[in-house]
């Protein structure tokens, strides 16, 4: 019986689908340019100059990316690049639209010496990062050569990475730990996930994500035989050997370590889900998933029990019951929530006493844990404002949502594009994930299968964690929304991710290498 991959490859006619890709790309560009035009028409009644600068800039970059893909990866999946361009373009339009409303705030913030990323939408910056991102895409496509000839001189393919599994794993850990290093690390909005390099802020976690996928893929490909076959059987579960379980426990502790030190729940969840899913793909054993989820449950339980991790407890409480926390709420040990918002006497008393943060001071006095659900609720209000059809781009008030251009950009989209727009955005993400999964299935090499599968799943999981968070499906944790959120690290990492998938899909979809001779079966030489 032939494998699914064989079946898919058998059905792929090895066609170049570049015309389809170009048509889709044109559609993505029209979408972006219309978005810019709508912003201008709604606000001033004219086509905005931003259409030519930002929209035009994106079009030029996208065309360059397309030409490179056409030349270096002609068999690539036709959907990946247009989908990424559409997301990036819509994100750029939304940030442009927010920038028009918040640029004054940013100037004020800059004068006060604060960093712009923290304070306001910045469309020139985002266009620059888009340029860098697409440049990385182009560079990655050009550098990564044919997977089937890994030993060709001066070539680097996704497959090459397999050789440096442990080095890459170490790099991922170093990247993750960087924000904790005093001096270069910085805490923004309660999570310590940033480092400052000169004038730029970088979120190394975004890149660590890619390195971790490579590490997991490399490690698991080596160990999968042992992990899936050897082990004691206990009831329906077959337990792994300790030496195979070890690295998993290390990763588990590491995820918790990240969670503890950086207060970055989203990233911890992302890595853990990523690792469990890749473990499952590699070993095909459900028992590993059960063990993984069990460990996660234990980790979350321990985290909620520890006194200095009240943060986690509170996030869950806010998720279930945000109203008392609006503008400030105080979770007491008894589990009761006492509002300490500016309308309360507690707040006024603390303010009268001269506290700079009256809500927090009042809460400390009560002996509770302070938190504020205003972000989450204001995001939800933005969604409510949008309703089914949205207010229309440029006609809502998305700037009322805190972090409307980064963590909450999905809610900003929901306000102005409505349910209709959000469904379209989710479909675009779903298509990227499914195209990636298809690439994984069609890939010929186990390492590449795992790599592509992991990379695709990480997109799905990241979208789920952040979008689920801002729509109150799950407790809110901070992550970037791929391609939409303002921020260079996220854009660069995601464009590299798309480049990897494009390269892999090219390799999977192109015709199989011709046999050197076809006189007789014994003569076939395969590099596979």
């Amino acid at each position, binding site marked *: 019986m032939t*494998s*699914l*991959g064989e079946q898919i490859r058998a059905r792929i006619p090895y066609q170049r689908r570049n015309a389809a890709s170009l048509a889709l790309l044109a559609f993505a560009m029209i979408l972006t340019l219309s978005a810019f035009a*709508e912003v201008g*028409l*709604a606000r001033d009644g004219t086509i905005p100059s931003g259409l030519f600068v930002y929209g035009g800039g994106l079009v030029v970059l996208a065309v360059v990316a397309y030409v490179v893909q056409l030349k270096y990866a002609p068999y690539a999946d036709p959907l990946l690049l247009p989908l990424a361009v559409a997301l990036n373009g819509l994100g750029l339009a939304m940030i442009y639209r927010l920038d028009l*409303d918040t640029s004054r705030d940013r100037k004020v913030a800059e004068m006060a010496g604060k960093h712009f990323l923290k304070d306001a939408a910045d469309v020139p910056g985002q266009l620059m990062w888009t340029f860098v991102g697409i440049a990385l895409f182009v560079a990655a496509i050009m550098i990564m050569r044919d997977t089937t000839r890994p030993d060709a001189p001066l070539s680097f393919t996704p497959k090459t990475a397999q050789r440096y599994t442990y080095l890459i794993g170490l790099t991922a850990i170093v990247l993750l730990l960087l924000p904790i290093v005093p001096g270069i690390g910085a805490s923004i909005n309660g999570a310590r996930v940033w480092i400052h390099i000169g004038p730029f802020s970088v979120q190394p976690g975004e890149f660590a994500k890619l390195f971790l996928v490579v590490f997991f893929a490399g490690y698991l490909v080596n160990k999968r035989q042992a992990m899936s076959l050897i082990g004691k059987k206990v009831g329906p579960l077959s337990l792994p050997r300790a030496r195979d379980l070890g690295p998993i426990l290390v990763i588990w502790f590491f995820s918790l370590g990240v969670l503890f030190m950086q207060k970055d729940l989203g990233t911890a969840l992302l890595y853990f889900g990523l690792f469990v*899913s890749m473990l*499952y*793909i*590699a070993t*095909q054993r459900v028992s590993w998933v059960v063990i993984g989820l069990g460990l996660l449950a234990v980790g979350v339980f321990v985290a909620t029990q520890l006194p200095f991790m009240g943060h986690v407890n509170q996030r869950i409480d806010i998720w279930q019951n945000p*109203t008392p926390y*609006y*503008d400030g709420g105080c979770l007491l040990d008894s589990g009761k929530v006492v509002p300490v918002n500016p309308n309360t006497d507690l707040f006024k008393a603390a303010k009268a006493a001269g506290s700079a943060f009256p809500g927090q001071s009042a809460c400390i006095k009560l002996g509770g844990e302070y938190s504020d659900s205003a972000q989450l*609720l204001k995001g*939800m*209000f933005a*969604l*409510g*404002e*949008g*309703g*089914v059809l949205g207010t*229309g781009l*440029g*006609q809502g*008030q998305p700037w*009322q949502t805190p972090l409307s251009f980064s963590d909450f950009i999905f809610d900003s989209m*929901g306000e102005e594009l*409505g*349910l209709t727009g*959000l*469904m379209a955005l*989710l479909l675009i*993400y*779903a298509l990227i*994930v*499914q195209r990636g*999964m*298809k690439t*994984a*299935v069609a890939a010929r090499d*186990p390492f590449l*299968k*795992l790599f592509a*599968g992991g990379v*695709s*799943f990480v997109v*799905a*999981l990241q*979208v*789920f964690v952040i*979008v*689920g968070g801002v*729509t*109150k*499906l799950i407790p809110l944790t901070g992550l970037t929304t791929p391609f939409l959120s303002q921020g260079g690290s996220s854009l660069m990492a995601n464009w590299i991710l798309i480049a990897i998938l494009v390269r892999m899909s090219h390799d999977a979809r192109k015709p199989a290498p011709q046999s050197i001779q076809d006189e007789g079966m014994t003569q076939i030489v395969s590099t596979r």
Partner: protein
Amino acid sequence: MDKPIRRVAIFGMLLFFGLMIQVNYVQGSEAESLRNDPNNARQYQNVFNSPRGQITAGGEVLASSSLTGKDNPKYGRTYKDGLVFSPVTGYFNGGASKVELAYNSLLGGTDKRITHQRWFDTFIGKKAEGANVELALDPDAQRKAYQLLRNGTTRRAGAAVIDIKTGAVKVLSSSSSFDPNLVAPQTGEKGVKVLEQLDGQRGVIQPLIDNGMSQTFPPGSSFKAVVAAMALDELGMSSSSTVNTGPLILPESGNPLPNSHDGGSCAGSAPLLGAFAESCNTSFARIALDAGIQKLHDESSKFGFNRHWSIEPLVKPAESDVPLSYVDANGNKVTTGRDGTARSGIGQENVRATPLQMAMVAAAVANDGKIMQPYLVQKVTTKDQKTLYEVDPKVFSEAMKSGSASQLRDMMRAVVNEGTAKNLIGQNIAGKTGTAEQGAGLPNARWFVGFSPIQNPRYAFAVVTEGSGDGASGAGPIAASIMAQVRRK
């Protein structure tokens, strides 16, 4: 490895399905409750992001919106002669009162009548603009009234003038008053404070409560118009029926009920017309005693007493009352007794009326017994002059018979020609004076209630001012001047 990849792919899809279901739930089902969440400031801020329509009267723009140059609020609200017109326009600062409240959705452009008409604009994303509201008010007369009321007393004063044939409110004036510019959106927090301060004022002077229709006063002798209507309509009397104008001892307490003077018609007996013209208390107290408080209550109800009604949507004048009983300070229900009935007959005891209500009484007299439903807003037009709403005059009530009204008109003319308001001869107004005691230490409520012109009346009016002295001198001249201005139109 293909099978687990496929399963993970399906799991990934399930994650997206979860998100889609959640987004549908939030934006589809929850949107309405999110929009109305008490913590959601947007519902209050949205109203400042589009220009609100104008409020005009007699070709003058009384309230208009203008850009503030700020993001929030984007539009402010400017009131011309705010102190003069606020009893009708009200204020707007997110919250609203009076016409600003009643026509909020039309002024703000969110009314279905606008959005349906402009569905294409809405479709292409142009916000529907607010409609313009045109008041029935006579702005010059309103100004004159405010000036006269303010000069007439340091305490409260109110005036109402209505067109008897349509119910159009030509003047609705109050002193004290407030300037809605001080609480308009552009004043922000400061405005909210001012409003709180105005709202919190306790005591006699409450600027937010206009004295034209939102404040009641004891009507005193001006209420005799209602008692006379009852006598003519229900008790079979005519203006020439002889009535006892002699001294009256109250049946329960045995105290005398005095007349203001015991000469002239009030010397012992007189025709009803004479007793009315000279405002003899004892005759009207006797009529009330004969009829009983229930009948008096019912009669006054025909004119609009004893019930809540709306002059415009959400705008209710204060309830004028001829109570059958009242609840005292200790929470006990006290029924109006015989003495109380007698005193009610002369507009004292617990009888209360707004100037607007008394103008309606006069309108019934002037309009053959029929009261037209008073209204403030003449019509509403869109920016491009399409009419969205135009008032359709309706009958408020048939308060008295035509013949009785005709006799009562003559009685009111006699008040000016030969009765208590001879100081108003030649002013082309007729009516009834009233001077109500408001309790020990308080000034009188001085009334003049009537119609103008004397022949073929067109307008009914009521003026009340607080102070010492009587209605003829304390309210009459003010009414005469206002009506002179109203008739000029």
